């Protein structure tokens, strides 16, 4: 159990209230090395597992010779498909019932390079690593389809649920006075959290303890329980701190099953940390995408039609959809629209979720295309966005709950100095540097799943908040302390927050930028309930110091209770608890609608995504919005691109802690700069290997790549979107960065790069 408390006072008292700039309360543990990440535990008798991966991308394993590995000192067992304990297939994250077939985390049939085929478990990490290199695998190899650039991959197959159409897009396009059509592509991109993935699995009888970095403790625990046919309650998962996830630590993995199988077979705790190269193939990042966008418009730049055709890669045996029409369909007012999407199976691991799956590449397409249209009709790229501003959701035909995008355009343009932009391409220059200004918008939906929280008032006046929800750097610990402090009326220093443990009240996935909103809502409701009970106790208990006042209510401020009738004489919460003889007051509350409060629906709500509401469920269409203004400098001789200045204006509704929200925004922007200029999974077309599967070759931004970033909040509380008025934060800010940079590069150079990343050879 990890407990983060707020004993160290930071900043002003007002910082502790919701909306205050409180420094993160898990900060002291993280800056001193005391924070206990999941894989840093050492249960007695722990041994080490190392995975052996397939070196071919397509074919089958004919034989595995484990004799040399088994003979290696310290080796306890070599797991292969032949000797691994059989387990069952589990319910998937959508809640779809599993097929009644075994789940085989070690493969015989190979569909991608890097597929797990064996595991070596030894007394030490060094022994397991050395022995894993001795496992000899014989394959029968078939020619892989390495990527959707291979003509043999074909066009894939359509995903009808992604089709969005209104009006008659083809007909309107055919008669539009201005027509442009281009293809936009994004490569495979990877999450690359600095903490690599893995787990420690430990069985005690039929109780399974897992120390595993997880964005979704309850969902993953359910899977482990079903794999091994044990009750959900028998799985204890601990994930007190997570060293980054960005979408990649939300779902159970094959290596997780391998570690739990090994631990059960050996009856020893097993630690399995995958290597950095394995983080490129043990789970998927963002799939490669391509989009063809045709815009039809008037000569003044008013959109008449959008025809959008897109595809993303998926694995040979599974369906991964990167929703490429998600931004295309809501960013601009357009009377005729058609978006359809295919997926193309290739020999890759199943792609996964990476920050703003769908919205991110979708925005790259439409936000470049609208920029191209601006140049085509000869108007300012900012003006064309305002000209086509969507006053309501053009797809759902519902009003926005809040859409402060117009305010964002204005605030960002002012702070950036957009008016100083010279309209023609290649018209701004300093010495050997071509200077370009670019703009692009972004959006991310408000996703909503009910939450749950326990709030306790302890006898010493401490407030305890508990949830299995997690903090991977978003600031969950901190904003929940602020929420409880404000709701009850205590200094934030008296709040203790417990997270990341499946023995605590349930929480849905920390994904889709939903956790902050649903958890602050649940904590707010639970804290008010605890406060009400405390006040009731203070009014009614015969031993209460307030008994004689015969008050109807009491106020609590700064941890002191007082009566409106006698504000002068206040009593500390701890004193009231002592006088009334109470050890604690507990309030466990959830925000489930009444029809979902039965046991089965409660379980389903927290262990699947089946109860997550779409952003257009209800009377409004709910989204966060942003705009990025970018200045780039392109070396005229070498084609190197530097982002030299950036201003972003963002509407995430109410910010629970601006200091931490700004950090998340900047983090998204920086990942977007990496996406625009650096990041690209390079696939060897001959054998399907990801060639740059390490941090020296898959380039993510370094400190020197990033200029000063200015972020401006233009949001207002949106209580349609969430109980306390916040909208999506974490995934918003990456959306629109890459097109803003591509548009700036075009302005600087006159060269339109439509396939990311924008590397120098595309500019010279």
């Amino acid at each position, binding site marked *: 159990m990890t407990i983060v408390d707020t004993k160290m006072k930071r900043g002003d008292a007002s910082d502790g209230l919701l909306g205050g700039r409180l420094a993160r309360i898990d900060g002291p543990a993280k800056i001193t090395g005391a924070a206990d990440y999941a894989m840093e535990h050492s249960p007695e008798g722990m041994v080490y597992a190392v995975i052996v991966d397939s070196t071919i991308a397509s074919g089958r394993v004919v034989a595995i010779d484990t004799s040399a590995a088994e003979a290696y000192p310290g080796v306890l067992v070599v797991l292969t498909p032949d000797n691994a304990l059989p387990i069952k297939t589990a319910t998937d994250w959508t809640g779809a019932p599993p097929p009644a077939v075994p789940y085989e985390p070690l493969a015989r049939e190979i569909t991608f390079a890097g597929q797990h085929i064996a595991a070596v478990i030894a007394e030490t990490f060094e022994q397991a690593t050395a022995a894993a290199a001795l496992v000899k695998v014989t394959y029968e190899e078939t020619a892989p389809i390495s990527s959707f650039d291979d003509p043999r991959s074909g066009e894939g197959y359509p995903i009808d649920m992604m089709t969005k159409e209104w009006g008659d897009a083809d007909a309107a396009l055919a008669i539009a006075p201005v027509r442009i059509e281009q293809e936009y592509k994004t490569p495979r991109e990877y999450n690359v959290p600095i903490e690599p993935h893995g787990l420690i699995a430990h069985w005690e009888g039929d109780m399974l303890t897992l120390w595993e970095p997880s964005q979704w403790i309850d969902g993953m625990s359910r899977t482990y329980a079903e794999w091994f046919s044990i009750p959900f309650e028998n799985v204890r998962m601990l994930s007190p701190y997570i060293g980054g996830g960005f979408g990649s630590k939300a779902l159970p993995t094959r290596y997780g099953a391998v570690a739990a199988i090994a631990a059960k077979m050996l009856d020893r705790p097993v630690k399995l940390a995958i290597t950095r190269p394995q983080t490129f193939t043990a789970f998927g990042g963002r799939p490669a995408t391509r989009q063809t966008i045709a815009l039809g418009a008037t000569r003044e730049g008013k959109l008449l039609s959008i025809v959008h055709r897109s595809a993303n890669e998926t694995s040979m045996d599974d369906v991964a959809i990167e929703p490429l029409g998600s931004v295309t369909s809501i960013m601009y007012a357009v009377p005729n629209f058609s978006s359809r999407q295919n997926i193309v199976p290739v020999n890759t691991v199943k792609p996964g979720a990476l920050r703003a799956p769908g919205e991110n590449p979708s925005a790259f397409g439409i936000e470049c295309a609208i920029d191209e249209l601006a140049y085509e009709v000869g108007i300012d790229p900012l003006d064309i966005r305002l000209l086509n501003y969507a006053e309501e959701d053009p797809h759902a035909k519902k009003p926005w709950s809040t859409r402060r995008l117009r305010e964002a355009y204005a605030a960002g343009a002012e702070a950036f100095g957009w008016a100083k932009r010279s309209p023609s391409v290649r018209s701004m220059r300093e010495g050997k540097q071509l200077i370009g200004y670019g703009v692009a918008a972004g959006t991310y939906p408000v996703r909503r799943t009910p939450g749950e929280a326990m709030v306790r008032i302890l006898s010493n006046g401490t407030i305890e908040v508990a949830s299995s929800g997690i903090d991977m*750097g978003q600031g969950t610990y901190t904003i929940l302390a602020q929420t409880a402090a404000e709701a009850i009326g205590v200094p934030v220093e008296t709040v203790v927050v417990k997270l990341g443990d499946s023995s605590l009240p349930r929480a849905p996935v920390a994904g889709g930028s939903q956790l902050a909103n649903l958890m602050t809502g649940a904590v707010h409701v639970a804290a008010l309930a605890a406060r009400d009970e405390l006040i009731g106790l203070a009014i009614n208990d015969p031993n209460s110091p307030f008994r004689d006042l015969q008050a109807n209510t009491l106020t609590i401020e700064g941890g002191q209770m007082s009566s409106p009738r006698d504000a002068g004489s206040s009593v500390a919460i701890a004193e009231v608890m002592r006088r009334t003889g109470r050890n604690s007051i507990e309030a466990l509350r959830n925000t489930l609608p009444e029809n979902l409060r039965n046991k089965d629906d409660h379980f389903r709500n927290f262990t699947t995504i089946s109860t997550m509401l779409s952003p257009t469920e209800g009377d409004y269409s709910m989204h966060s919005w942003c705009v990025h203004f970018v200045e780039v400098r392109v070396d005229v001789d070498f084609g190197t691109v530097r982002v030299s200045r950036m201003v972003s204006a963002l509407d995430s509704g109410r910010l629970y802690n601006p200091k931490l929200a700004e950090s998340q925004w900047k983090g998204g922007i920086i990942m977007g700069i990496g996406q625009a200029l650096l990041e690209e999974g390079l696939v060897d077309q001959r054998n399907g290997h990801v060639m740059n599967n390490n941090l020296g070759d898959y380039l993510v931004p370094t400190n020197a790549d990033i200029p000063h970033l200015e972020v401006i909040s233009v949001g207002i509380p949106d209580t349609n979107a969430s109980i306390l008025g916040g909208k999506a934060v974490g995934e918003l800010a990456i959306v629109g960065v890459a097109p803003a940079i591509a548009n700036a590069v075009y302005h600087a150079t006159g060269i339109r790069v439509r396939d990311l990343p924008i590397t120098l050879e595309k500019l010279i």
Partner: protein
Amino acid sequence: MSNQTTINLEINGQAHTLAVEPRVTLLDALRDHLELTGTKKGCDQGQCGACTVHVDGERVLSCLTLAVQVEGRAVTTIEGLSDPGAELHPVQSAFLEHDAFQCGYCTPGQIMSAVSCIREGHAGSDDEIREYMSGNLCRCGAYPHIVEAVREAAKVMS
């Protein structure tokens, strides 16, 4: 396994005697044998900087250093930068104040590098800080706040 060797290490001013195989890295010795898990393993191949420690006052990557190589040399890890319960090192305070981290996993390495960056005299400008802090990757994207924190800490330390 029989080919263990006994080594004597000085970590954060304390002497430790350890029986490990010669191939054990300083990083794994710290994390798996000495329970000093503040030093992080991010890539295990010298590319991310999360494992940065000080050896004889210089920043080194502990994943590319064998434990046997640092016998007789003074090793400082994040746990030794300030005493428990005592005042934080100025770089630690500045990281907290400027929110120079999110998930916290690269943070001990960033802080160890930042202390060196300032000591080496490479915190003279924001651009210089960016350059000399670029051996430490942060995927959460705390770079602008790291620059602010190093700039502020350098003032305090000078």
